[in-house]
Each structure stands twice: as structure tokens, then as C-alpha cells.
């Protein structure tokens, strides 16, 4: 479907049959800064995941033990292909566990 050679290839009504296909689009080039989660600082509160407009915070059931010996059942990470670097996650994180790092020095 993504290769339409002529207008005759257009589906009736402009129908699209691949739900969620924008996942194939890489928007990393939109970013000026990239968020980076400090796994040691993160308290697994879910707030960044809740607010991200691009569903680019990944919540996984992956155990993590901090250097001080605290074990968490969840791990948060970033889907860098779909993060646009808006900074909402870093701004809303209650413990400032997310840093925004410039993409270009």
C-alpha cells in the first residue's frame, strides 16, 4: 500500500488497512534534545509514560536493582524512533530522573 504507482492504485475512499502504521515512520530527526532516564534515580512512578504525547516511553516488566539495593519490577525506557524530544517527560518527572541531552553539541 505504501507504494502507489498511479492514482488508480488509490483504495476506494482513501481507506488505509494497516492500523498503527505510523510506527514505520522514524521521527527522531525532529529532536533537538534527547531524553535520558537515569535508572538509579527513577522511582517507577509512571508519570512520564502517562504524559508522553508520542507513546514513546516504554514500560516493561523488567527487574532493576539499584546500587543501593532497591529492586523495581518495572523499567522505563525511551523509544528513540518515536520520541520527538518535547521534554514533557523530563519536565514532569517528580525526581528529575530524566535529563535532556542536546542532539548536536
Amino acid at each position, binding site marked *: 500500500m505504501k507504494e502507489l504507482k498511479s492514482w488508480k492504485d488509490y483504495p476506494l475512499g482513501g481507506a488505509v488497512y494497516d492500523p498503527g502504521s*505510523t510506527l514505520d515512520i*522514524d521521527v527522531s530527526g*525532529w529532536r533537538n534534545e534527547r531524553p535520558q532516564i537515569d535508572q538509579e534515580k527513577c522511582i517507577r*512512578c509512571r508519570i512520564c509514560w*502517562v504524559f508522553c504525547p508520542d507513546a514513546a516511553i516504554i514500560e516493561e516488566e523488567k527487574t532493576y536493582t539499584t546500587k543501593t539495593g532497591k529492586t523495581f519490577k518495572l523499567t522505563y525506557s525511551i523509544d528513540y524512533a518515536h520520541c520527538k*524530544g*518535547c521534554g*514533557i517527560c523530563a*519536565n514532569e518527572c517528580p525526581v528529575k530522573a530524566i535529563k535532556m541531552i542536546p542532539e548536536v553539541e
Partner: protein
Amino acid sequence: MTYELEKIKTLWDIPKEEHLVGGHSLCAGCTAATIVRHLLKVAGKNTIVVNATGCVEVSTTSFPYTAWRVPWLHVAFENAGAVASGVESAINALKIKGEIPVEKEINVIAIAGDGGSFDIGFQALSGLMERGHKVMFVIYDNEAYMNTGIQRSGATPFAAWTTTTPVTRRIRGEWRNKKDMFDIAIAHGIDYAATANPAYPVDMDSKFQKGLSKDGPSLVHVIMPCTTGWRFEPKYGITIAKLATETAVWVNMEYDVGNFSVTVPVKKRKHVREYLKLQGRYSHLSETEIELIQEQIDRKVEEINKRAGKEVIGPLEA
């Protein structure tokens, strides 16, 4: 509701599934995407979305891609209410004909911006409510026609700059007041209407849940800070949304079969300056103008407290 979802009481009750995925082209930091993500988490996969033209529609469906994982339909700018009414009626007809099991529950949700609901989409929305279709209408209100370049709408608040309410020697931004969609919806005799705010996701998501559980039309009107049109850095979208409620610029209310309530009470209000000063669309305001806006809010708060029968929104912080 199409599936048994526990009542959302904390952030941990919010379903994990994403039905609006990334890769769309809404601006970085667009809170509309946060709102719609949550809406679909609550509604689940047995949902049909009808979308009016606007940022959400245009930016989630650049042909031949789509960010939606549920059936989604766009016809025009002005008719989301009519199209959603048709979809709901078609489902009923197919049930009568035996082509869909009668017990199958399908959510029909119309999503429109403020332009697509307050203004050009208004008659279609009004008709939907008046005829009693079982449709939830969700307005994401960024207080202007953003997709076409920040033109004012009936939802643009007093004093806000837009490209059609400019700041000149004679004009100081919008000179009219925002239309009251919450009460207009209630006046149609519908069972459920609410105002919501993405900075209060549990409150917002439970309102989506309640709206979907009704047998007839429901309306949820959500404030949506827009980085491009409100002129603020993308990272502040949720901060500004929160300040809207903390200053009582935006009160999270609910009307549920005759009962009015304020679902997010505010003990002490912040001065409206805190909300205005983060947004470029208000950067022209003088102290006198800011005080004028504060007086308008004070009056509105008094009315709301009267209506609630108790002090749900407190006085200004000292």
C-alpha cells in the same frame, strides 16, 4: 463500555495498550496526542472513532499511514456529529438485521477540535445530542483553529492573541468571551457532560469511562495546551494545563444525570498571572488587563461555588 474495565482510581489503573501509536506528525509536545491516547486506552479496541478535520485528524493520518489502531473515519470539518450519529444508527440497524450480535457493544466516539465543535461543527453536535445518539463527543480545546494557522474560534478566551485577533494599537487580542459548551450541552437534556484536563489524567480518564457508560449522548470537553498556537516551549504543555486548573481558569466539572459537581476542588487558587505569563499569546497584557481577567475568574468562581452549594474552589493565595 465494550469490556469490563475497572474504575480508574490511580495512574496504575490506566490500561497499557496503545491504540494511538507514535510516528504521527502532531507537534512535539502536542497535548492533544496525550488526550487521545488516554481516550482510546479507556475505550479499548471495540471502538469506532469519527474525527472532524483539524490537527488531530490531519496529523495522525498522512496517507497512506495511520496512527490509529481502531476503525477511524473522517468525512469533513463540520459534520463529525452527523457522521457519528450515522455510524451509531448503522450499528443499530445491523443489529436489527442480525448481522451484528445484539449484545455486542461498540463505542462510537466523535473527536473534534474547538472549531469543529463550538463553531462549524456545532449544528451537527447539537443534532446528535438532541436526537439522543449513543455517542461520546470529545472536544480537544486548544482555543483556536490551529491547523490552519491560529485563527480565533468561539472558544478563544478573552485577551488571547490569535492571527485574527491580533495585537495592534487598537486591538488587544480577543475582545469577546469564550462560549460555555458545558452548559450548552447540558441544556440539550443529555445525561452526561464534563470538563477535563490532561494534567489530571485519572480524573480525565474516569470521565471518559463515565461518558462511554451512558446509554445516550455524552460530551467531554478537554482543555488542550497547544505549543504552537499558545506560544510556549513544548515541554510546558502539562505544566500549563495544571496551572489552568490551579488558577481556576479551567475548572474540572461534571454533570451526571442532574447532579453537578466539581471533581477537582482547589483549596487555594493561584493568581491568573501564573498561567498567563508562560504563554506568548498573552505576552502583550498589562497589569491592569491581567487584573481584569482575574476579576472575571473571581466572578466565575463565585458562581461555581454557588452552584456546587459549597466552597469547592477556594480564595486566591495570599
